[in-house]
């Protein structure tokens, strides 16, 4: 049985429409108008237990709405959802016992309480035995570097400290399914690295199923082998990250450091290669590796110009996703 099963899931919101100004507000009192917004448009996918899947899309694409339906907070307008065999909305409390959720910019910890007290309260809610809690607290405090924070109230913490605390609170009851909605938003590189490492370990040790929503493609490359891509509420891709990289990653870049000030005459390049930028002695080219090779381009450029140095750039996920959003899959 899949850990998460989604079939033709749809969420439609009714959004009140108001004309501008006081007159519009007054009119809205007597003639309220609503427009329908399809936030999630009949999507289907499933996650096996222990999978870590990236869920990506631009702002407003429907990622968070999907996660909220999977957690049981929002009820679907139509379609079928099962998380660990349960309907998450109808069995919200039972579902909540087996899941953990992080919403990147919101805290579920108690604002005025010290972290240790907050975590103890979480342990009580999930009925974690005291001995197990103490052991987990020690482990989490070490891995997430929380030792100094345990006696600190949440309201006095920095964003990175809060996020590490949030992760501890989300995973301390060893949930079987975890939804991470932008867990690394606004964090510095070191904190991101620590969080990614922690998530990897949790997945490996406990077989936790993870659905990760992020704009940071570094998170995806580091943690996920499979991605779901959503655009305007529709699921436009469900498959291996590697497949996407191969399909859209045929283009490479080459950077040349030239001896002179730049190009004196037009540069003749093999078919499939083009100049993307040229500033002073720096020249950047983009080429399709199916149509021509790096060595062909290098020899062509070197036969026409004096080259001091050059490098080849691999395609990054950001540029691939840009291509997909621009309609690359259609």
């Amino acid at each position, binding site marked *: 049985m899949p850990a998460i099963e989604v079939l033709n899931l749809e969420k439609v*919101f009714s959004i009140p429409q108001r004309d501008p100004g006081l007159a519009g507000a007054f009119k809205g009192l007597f003639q309220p108008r609503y427009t329908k917004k399809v936030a999630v448009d009949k999507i289907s996918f499933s996650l096996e237990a222990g999978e870590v899947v990236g869920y990506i899309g631009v702002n*407003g694409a429907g990622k968070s709405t999907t996660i*909220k339906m999977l957690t049981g*907070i929002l009820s679907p307008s139509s379609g079928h959802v099962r998380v660990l065999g349960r309907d998450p*909305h109808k069995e919200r*409390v039972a579902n909540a016992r087996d899941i953990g959720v992080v919403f990147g910019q919101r805290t579920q910890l108690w604002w*005025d*309480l010290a972290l240790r007290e907050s975590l103890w*309260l979480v342990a009580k*809610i999930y009925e974690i035995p005291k001995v197990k809690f103490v052991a987990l607290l020690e482990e989490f405090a070490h891995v997430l570097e929380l030792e100094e924070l345990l006696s600190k109230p949440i309201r006095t913490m920095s964003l990175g400290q809060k996020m590490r605390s949030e992760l501890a609170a989300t995973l301390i009851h060893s949930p079987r399914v975890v939804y991470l909605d932008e867990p690394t938003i606004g964090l510095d590189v070191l904190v991101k690295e620590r969080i990614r490492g922690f998530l990897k370990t949790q997945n490996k040790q406990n077989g936790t199923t993870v659905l990760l929503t992020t704009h940071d493609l570094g998170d995806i490359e580091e943690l996920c082998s499979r991605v779901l891509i959503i655009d305007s509420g529709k699921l436009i891709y469900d498959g291996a990250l590697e497949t996407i990289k191969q399909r859209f990653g045929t283009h490479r870049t080459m950077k040349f450091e030239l001896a002179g000030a730049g190009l004196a005459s037009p540069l003749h390049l093999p078919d499939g290669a083009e100049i993307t930028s040229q500033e002073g002695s720096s020249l950047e080219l983009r080429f399709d590796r199916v149509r021509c090779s790096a060595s062909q381009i290098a020899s062509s450029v070197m036969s026409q110009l004096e080259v001091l140095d050059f490098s080849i750039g691999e395609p990054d996920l950001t540029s691939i996703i840009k291509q997909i959003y621009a309609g690359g899959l259609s």
Partner: protein
Amino acid sequence: MTQSLKFMRFLSIYTSFGLLEIQRIFQYNAWFWVELGRGIIAMIIMTAFWKAIYADQTQLAGLTLTTTLSYVILARALNAANASSVYWWIAQHISKGELELQLLRPLDFQLLHLFRDAMSWFVGLLRSLPALLVGFIVFSAQLPTDFMAYMAFFITFFLGGIVMFFFEFMLGCIAFYTTEVWGLSVLREGIALFFSGAYIPLNFLPETFRVIASATPFAQATYVPISFLAGVQNPANLGNAILSQLISILVIAILSRWIFSKAVQVLTVQGG
């Protein structure tokens, strides 16, 4: 696991949230002094007002000046000690888009808030003590000598609080549809002003209004307990009062749970 052990665990979890509320209340102490000052000013005005009303008569609506003064001073001192904040809490969390985080906990949302409010009522009583002392020392209000009057007060105070909680919870559910409840809260305040008995004992209302007012959650939470403590109502009526409150709790609790189950389906999380 035995049923009693399960129950103890259940109590322990929900009580923890109640204790958390007490901790939170004590962190914001400035309001205590504001409320005390406001209560004393209200006592001065109301004492002068009722003394003027009773200037040439010994009894009104079956109540002596002493009884009426005791009632209004107690009503002021215990002002909203068993009130519920769930109504504002739900509305604010919905408008900020934070209710989702609360619904992610494997707890009964309504019960959790009932425990929070119930714990705050103990604090409410404690915080009323200075105002009560001022009432009795400065304004000569009288406390009953019958132990049963105190019993009646405490029982109906907590049951009244529960009635009010479920009622406010129902109002809070409106925010799921409207995302704000300010207008409704103004209306609610206006109705509560007359029907709760917080300013005048309900005995002074015309018969029809008195019957209607007595049946409202506002009166169940304010008039009923204070009338026992002020001697307006005989402790022998406790049985009837409890029965009436229990029926109110049963009806409003069932209704509020049903409304919540419907309201939560229309939740639109603000801010995506």
